[in-house]
């Protein structure tokens, strides 16, 4: 245990608007995991009342998904200095995790099925397009293999498990690297076989809902990253037994006939 030596301030993007389907699970689980390692956490909502100078306090940014109307409200607020502040934060290596629909907002642009093209924050060099409501959404359980070389730190288990439900398709530019290889599911666009994107210490992926509870090794990865960026220290984490976590993964991989040794 590294009792009380470290503290992580978690900035959660618009918790009221961007937590469509269990995204909160990531926050709850991440805080629990930190507590198990003796690391303190504080939750700071990045929402309407948040001002750009508060970014200074933030050590980790998390964003979940939202339905279209809520997304519009978010993008109306996440503008100007606030958007700049957030971009600088990522530029300065702050670890961040964007799941579900939020990576689309962090890209350069998003073209919805109907309506105007939305200009994103441009954190990720990526464009997203919704092919229209007559094209099937990408829905279903997912498995991927993290591309270790792209994320800059080893993870103890490189298989990621989740659930995707997105209409938009994302195409990566040269300024970002893919996060994982698709083993089961559609991935970014159903074509190139990649899932998610990485820029500096920010990771985005279409997996929605409880991504970290399903993939504790990614939670650990972020904890180590954050401590390294904030305190300039390399820490080793003594992994808890993770009895249920291991079982949950084992049961699902078995159901889908995926063996962990690929």
């Amino acid at each position, binding site marked *: 245990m590294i009792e009380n030596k470290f503290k992580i301030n978690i900035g959660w993007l618009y918790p009221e608007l961007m937590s*469509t*389907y269990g995204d*909160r*699970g990531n926050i*709850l689980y991440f805080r*629990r995991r930190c507590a198990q390692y003796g690391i303190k956490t504080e939750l700071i909502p990045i929402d309407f009342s948040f001002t750009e100078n508060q970014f200074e306090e933030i050590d980790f940014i998390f964003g979940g998904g939202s339905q279209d109307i809520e997304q519009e409200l978010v993008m109306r607020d996440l503008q100007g200095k606030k958007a700049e502040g957030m971009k600088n934060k990522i530029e300065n290596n702050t670890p961040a995790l964007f799941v579900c629909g939020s990576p689309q907002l962090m890209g350069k642009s998003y073209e919805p099925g109907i309506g105007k093209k939305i200009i994103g924050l441009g954190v990720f060099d990526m464009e997203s397009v919704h092919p229209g409501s007559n094209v099937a959404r990408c829905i279903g359980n997912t498995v991927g293999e993290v591309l270790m070389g792209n994320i800059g730190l080893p993870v103890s288990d490189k298989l990621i498990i989740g*659930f995707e*439900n997105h209409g938009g398709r994302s195409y990566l530019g040269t300024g970002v690297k893919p996060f994982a290889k698709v083993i089961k599911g559609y991935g970014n666009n159903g074509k190139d076989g990649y899932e998610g994107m990485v820029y500096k210490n920010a990771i985005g992926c279409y997996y929605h*809902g409880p991504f970290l*509870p399903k993939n504790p090794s990614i939670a650990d990865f972020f904890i180590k990253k954050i401590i390294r960026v904030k305190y300039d220290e390399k820490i080793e984490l003594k992994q808890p037994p993770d009895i249920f976590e291991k079982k949950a993964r084992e049961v699902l991989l078995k159901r889908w006939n995926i063996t962990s040794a690929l």
Partner: protein
Amino acid sequence: MFYPALFLAKFVDWCIQSLNLGAGSTWPGEVALHIDPSFVRHLAQKNTMKFILIVGTNGKTTTTALITHGLQKKGLKVICNPEGANLLNGVASMLVKNSSLKGQIVSDYAILELDENAFSQVISQIHNPDLILFLNLFRDQLDRYGEMHTIVKRWQRALASLSKSTTLIVNGDDPRLVYMSKQTALPVVYFGSAKEDKSQKEIPHDVDSVHCPACGSKLIYFAMSYSHLGDYACRQCGFSAPERWSDSLNLIPTLLGVYNRYNIRAAVSVLHIICRLEFTEARELLDGFQPAFGRQERLTAFRKEWIIILSKNPAGFNQSINALDEIAGNEKTDIGIILNDRIPDGTDVSWIWDVEFDRVYNHASTVVVSGDRTYDMAIRMETVEQGIKINSKLIAEPTLKKALEHLVDNHTSAQPIVILATYSGMMEVRKILKGRALL
């Protein structure tokens, strides 16, 4: 093509019944609609029976059962579609079953509980329903239904096609539904929950629409009952909760919880209009009501009392957990949580993270989790808010029968064992408990 459709559907129904094939609640209708795509419209036109349509995310089955109970007490003949058969083919099948070969149905009312997506389809065939009841709209199976404002838009388009002979009965505590009803020219009756049921202090996590459906600004809530239901107003555009019927009512002891009181109020509003009764008199028609299966259903098995509560989405689950206050009071009991991820449950179980499961521990000595997603549920139960201590035993057992045995073995409380389960889990638990009870 109406009669050939009816004859063949009747024949299919007869085959299914006599050969015990199952799927009898959808196939005859499927066949009829295949031959005569306007089958439901044609059959409806041949009869004087009036239609009551029930729409909403939660409470359809219970409310249908309540209205049926009340109307039957009044000596009226009622037919309704079995739960789960709530698409157009289910409606058609039910009508086929109740129709003579001449296309005659002897009934005063047909009460149809409808799937969110099937509503427009059914309206296209039943042009002049007597009443349409809108119960609520919560986040549920986004993988199947899509986003909520898309659903409302579709409903709205369907409503635009109706004549003024249809009355809407709308939950006035639900801003989205109120806004939708205001866009129509139809007569509307609003109901809302009583003051004592609006005790929620802060906006809970499972909310879906704290923003004004008219202008998008944040709504101000003066009081909340649960999820996004309550007394609200928009400072920006002036949109606010309408005048609603919200007097206190006598409880129905077999239907506890705020969510059930909404169902009761909805049913009473319907009976008030149809039977032209005062609200209190309409409420009396519901005396002696027994819950629909799996909806706070009580039964005895393995020498224990059980209560089964279907809990299928965040709002529903939070309400089931809330109802534990009324069901178990201060005494702890043992609680089973069954999470499946089959088609009727929704294949995505992410929503469990939107439910306030921490509160289950207030009522549980032992929590047993089971189902297809036993371990996802176990992780959820282990991950409580910071600072909460778990003093209950947590058991994860994927085999349902064994899970129920754990509950029996651990149970010492005078309160019934409580099962909170998703749809298919609820069905399986009933099968095991009922099967055993017969021996």
